[in-house]
């Protein structure tokens, strides 16, 4: 929520100098502190706010205050204000929560509340939280949130709710558990003695006990009634007469009294009260703007009304902002409408003036609301759209939607831009309802003059259809509609053009056309540099990283992902989670498993507050491979089973191939060839199929599957897939007996993989790859890289991991002449790094004899050097890999 916080909502009414002390009530409120919730539930005009305000000032605990209004039915706004109010008692609470609430996809309410509640639990002092005017809340999500809050209320927090009707919370349960304190109308009414104190001492009247009793009876102790009666009488000379007429009639108390009180005011004040009743909150300059009467000073009038106790409530300490007591305001409004019945244009004018003042003072939301109340559609539309980002993209969705819903079809048809706006807002709320509005917009546009504006609207319609197609993962529609949008959108409409370009890139990526995707993302990023980075810059940079991963350029990809984390702020916006996942994958590939795990943890942190996203499936696949690398096969199986269920449940079917491929690996590790084969077939995964064939010992079939797939990958420029295939082909060739070809191919693969620093792609193939690498090293192929990889293998073996699930490879080509026992001994000692002299000493032989043995060993192994001899012997299984 990026709309500004209204400090006035957090303002607790200050104690007033002349009030009726009501110790019986403040004592009840004190006792209530032992419970979780104190409910002050009574109709309007029973002095709830005054009482709670007085009590809170003197209760001896820190107190947070939140005055609710209709807009707080938006759960995101409600939660945001909850946090901000809490900050008045605990300075830095809810930092992360506020950040999460501002994200385009706010997190699920319960998880936000849980986080918040955990933070509240750390507050050291007992404190009170007051929710005033809770009756304005009727949205179920907010009610549910509050019920959740109550259920898990931290012990130091006491909640007070003031409302005109019993809230839809589990009150019976709380009552039964003794967790609820209540003050109701019967408690809040003035008792006869309190009424006497009020009328005579506070309001300065001198009434007889009989008069007081008569008034008390007539109003039934209703405070608002008594207050108005007192104000009336202050201006009356004949108080007895007044009391007689008043008590003698059945006339609705408030109506009668307001009439009386208004009549007593000078004309200018009457006009002031009536006209300013349209305002939710008032300040001097605003009143001046609405009244347009130079002879009246808004500020002075407000202050004098406050002094006269005429139901004006201050909203801050500076005497700048006020509001009318709700009851009073409602009655005034009713009177205003009545009086203006002949010319409602008058009331609309007032709203328009208010709208203008708010606009001039940069209070856009209120400006819009008054424009809507003034029934000035054009003005309202203009204010919603604003200068840059429309209001509904800045957190003000509900009021805009409500306004659009209230407009008659004829009004919308006359303004196609409103239909388009309607569709945009619905896209945020309920995307199934969007297409209908788009069609209405097109119908409205039909037959209008084509100009820049209408062309831009056509473009926006296409761009929204592209976005809808993203949700369906329908790449073709995305591309068609995005292209159409870019054709029609105005060249200056950069924000929507950027969004559309990104969706185009996304579609290309879905189709595997990486070059086209990269082009689109590069454009989004460069526009971001000149326009200011938006969420699309972040998204495009993530996508770019993914493409770089696809090109095997791991370092570059890691850089891109790190840049995303920079752009995403601190704490990072949840959208950056894919960057963490990318870094995790890269760290895994670089065999830094601890770092991989850490990045994975960061992903979990960021997504903790998110609803279900397909990224979770990606994470599960990553985690499964990590577990496999650590030898926890069953753990991997469990995670992937969960992932499969998740994918099916949420219809993220485009993630299924990744999950299935990982599952094939786990089943191969468990030796369950049938399951692995079935999965590979069902999902038509060439690499997985080849693995299954290999596991079955059918190397020909494996090679036959891999060859065409490799050609496909090379044709499409899928470098990552190409590397995977080449590695697997090398293993297959070796198993097939084609030692030379295998080594050659491995050399090619190593050349491709070295710049990226790939490790695990080799290590994960297990012992056969280790042998192959030794062979390659013996042949002098990429010795440095091979040595590094072999070292990684050694580290794995020391941990007891063996990545291979393949059947033991057929014995390597045996030596034409096997090594003798003595030669084996010598070779072992060579492998241990002993010099010829040291070997001679060990075996009690002369150095020359050792040299002779060496010559014969080298000849039999067909090598020329010690290192080569050792490597070859290992690859032949003559020497173990480990020393």
């Amino acid at each position, binding site marked *: 929520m990026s709309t500004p916080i209204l400090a006035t909502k957090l303002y607790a009414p200050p104690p007033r100098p002349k009030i009726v002390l009501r110790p019986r009530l403040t004592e009840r409120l004190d006792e209530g502190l032992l419970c979780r919730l104190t409910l002050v539930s009574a109709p309007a005009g029973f002095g709830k706010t005054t009482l709670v305000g007085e009590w809170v000032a003197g209760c001896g605990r820190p107190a947070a205050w939140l005055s609710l209004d209709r807009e707080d039915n938006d759960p995101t706004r409600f939660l945001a204000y909850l946090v901000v109010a809490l900050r008045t008692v605990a300075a830095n609470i809810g930092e992360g929560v506020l950040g999460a609430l501002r994200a385009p996809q706010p997190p699920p309410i319960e998880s936000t509340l849980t986080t918040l509640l955990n933070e509240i639990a750390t507050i050291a002092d007992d404190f009170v939280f007051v929710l005033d005017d809770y009756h304005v809340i009727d949205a179920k999500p907010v009610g549910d949130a509050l019920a959740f809050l109550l259920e898990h209320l931290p012990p130091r927090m006491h909640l007070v709710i003031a409302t005109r009707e019993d809230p839809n919370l589990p009150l019976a349960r709380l009552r039964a558990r003794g967790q609820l304190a209540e003050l109701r109308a019967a408690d809040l009414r003035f008792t006869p003695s309190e009424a006497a104190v009020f009328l005579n001492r506070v309001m300065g009247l001198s009434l007889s006990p009989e008069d007081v009793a008569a008034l008390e009876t007539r109003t039934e102790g209703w405070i608002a009634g008594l207050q108005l009666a007192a104000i009336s009488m202050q201006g009356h000379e004949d108080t007895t007469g007044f009391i007689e007429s008043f008590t003698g009639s059945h006339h*609705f108390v408030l109506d009668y009294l307001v009439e009386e009180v208004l009549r007593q005011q000078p004309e200018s004040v009457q006009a002031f009260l009536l006209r300013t009743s349209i305002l939710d909150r008032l300040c001097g300059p605003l009143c001046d703007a609405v009244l347009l009467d130079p002879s009246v000073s808004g500020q002075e009038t407000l202050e004098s009304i406050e002094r006269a106790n005429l139901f004006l409530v201050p909203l801050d300490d500076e005497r700048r902002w006020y509001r009318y007591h709700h009851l009073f305001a409602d009655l005034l409004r009713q009177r205003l*409408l009545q009086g203006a019945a002949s010319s409602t244009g008058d009331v609309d004018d007032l709203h328009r003036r208010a709208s203008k003042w708010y606009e001039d003072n940069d209070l856009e939301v209120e400006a819009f609301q008054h424009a809507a109340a003034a029934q000035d559609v054009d003005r309202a539309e203009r204010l919603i759209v604003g200068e840059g980002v429309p209001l509904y993209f800045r957190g003000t969705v509900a009021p805009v939607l409500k306004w659009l819903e209230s407009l008659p079809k004829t009004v919308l048809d006359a303004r196609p831009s409103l239909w388009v706006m309607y569709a945009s807002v619905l896209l945020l709320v309920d995307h199934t309802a969007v297409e209908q509005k788009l069609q209405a917009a097109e119908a409205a546009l039909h037959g209008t003059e084509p100009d820049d504006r209408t062309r831009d609207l056509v473009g926006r319609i296409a761009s929204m259809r592209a976005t809808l197609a993203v949700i369906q993962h329908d790449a073709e529609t995305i591309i068609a509609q995005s292209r159409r949008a870019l054709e029609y959108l105005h060249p200056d409409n950069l924000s929507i053009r950027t969004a559309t370009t990104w969706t185009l890139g996304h579609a290309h990526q879905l189709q595997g056309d990486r070059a086209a995707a990269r082009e689109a993302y590069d454009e989004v990023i460069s526009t971001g540099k000149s326009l200011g980075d938006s969420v699309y810059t972040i998204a495009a940079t993530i996508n770019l990283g993914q493409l770089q991963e696809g090109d095997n350029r791991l370092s570059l990809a890691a850089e891109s992902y790190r840049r995303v984390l920079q752009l995403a702020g601190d704490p990072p916006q949840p959208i950056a989670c894919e960057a963490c996942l990318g870094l995790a994958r890269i760290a895994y590939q670089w065999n830094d498993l601890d770092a991989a795990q850490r990045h994975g943890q960061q992903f979990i942190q960021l997504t903790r507050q998110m609803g279900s996203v397909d990224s979770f499936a990606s994470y599960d696949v990553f985690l499964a491979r990590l577990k496999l690398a650590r030898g926890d096969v069953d753990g991997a199986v469990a995670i992937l089973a969960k992932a499969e269920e998740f994918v099916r449940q949420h219809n993220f079917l485009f993630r299924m191939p990744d999950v299935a491929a990982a599952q094939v690996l786990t089943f191969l590790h468990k030796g369950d060839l049938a399951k692995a084969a079935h999965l590979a077939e069902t999902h038509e995964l060439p690499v997985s199929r080849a693995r299954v064939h290999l596991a079955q010992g059918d190397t020909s079939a494996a090679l036959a599957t891999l060859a065409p797939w490799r050609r496909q990958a090379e044709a499409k420029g899928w470098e990552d897939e190409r590397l995977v295939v080449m590695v697997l082909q090398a293993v297959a060739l070796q198993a097939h007996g084609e030692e030379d070809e295998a080594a050659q191919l491995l050399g090619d693969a190593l050349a491709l993989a070295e710049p990226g620093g790939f490790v695990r792609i080799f290590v994960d193939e297990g012992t056969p790859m280790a042998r192959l690498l030794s062979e390659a090293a013996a042949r002098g192929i990429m010795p440095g890289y091979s040595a590094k990889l072999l070292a990684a293998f050694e580290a794995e073996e020391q941990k007891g991991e063996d990545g291979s699930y393949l059947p033991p490879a057929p014995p390597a080509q045996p030596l034409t002449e096997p090594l003798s026992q003595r030669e084996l001994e010598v070779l072992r000692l060579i492998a241990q790094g002993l010099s010829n002299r040291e070997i001679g000493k060990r075996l009690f032989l002369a150095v020359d004899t050792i040299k002779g043995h060496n010559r014969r060993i080298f000849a039999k192994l067909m090598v020329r050097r010690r290192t080569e001899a050792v490597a070859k012997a290992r690859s032949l299984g003559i020497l173990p890999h480990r020393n």
Partner: protein
Amino acid sequence: MANDLDQPMVYQIRIKGHLGPQWADWFGGLSITLEDDGETLLTGPVVDQAALYGLLRKVRDLGMPLISAVRVKPP
């Protein structure tokens, strides 16, 4: 008895205290009848349940004690 969907529902809301005739507009054109016992009857067509609750809320917000809300046969 079949429900005639064309006929709107008619409700009679009873509140305590007398309202002046000028309140008819506020209550969306309901007729106002003042009873001798000091109560007021607001009678008239109500489109649907949501409209009914809206009316009840208006009554609540003006602090008028609600005695009853009854659905009656259209006259």
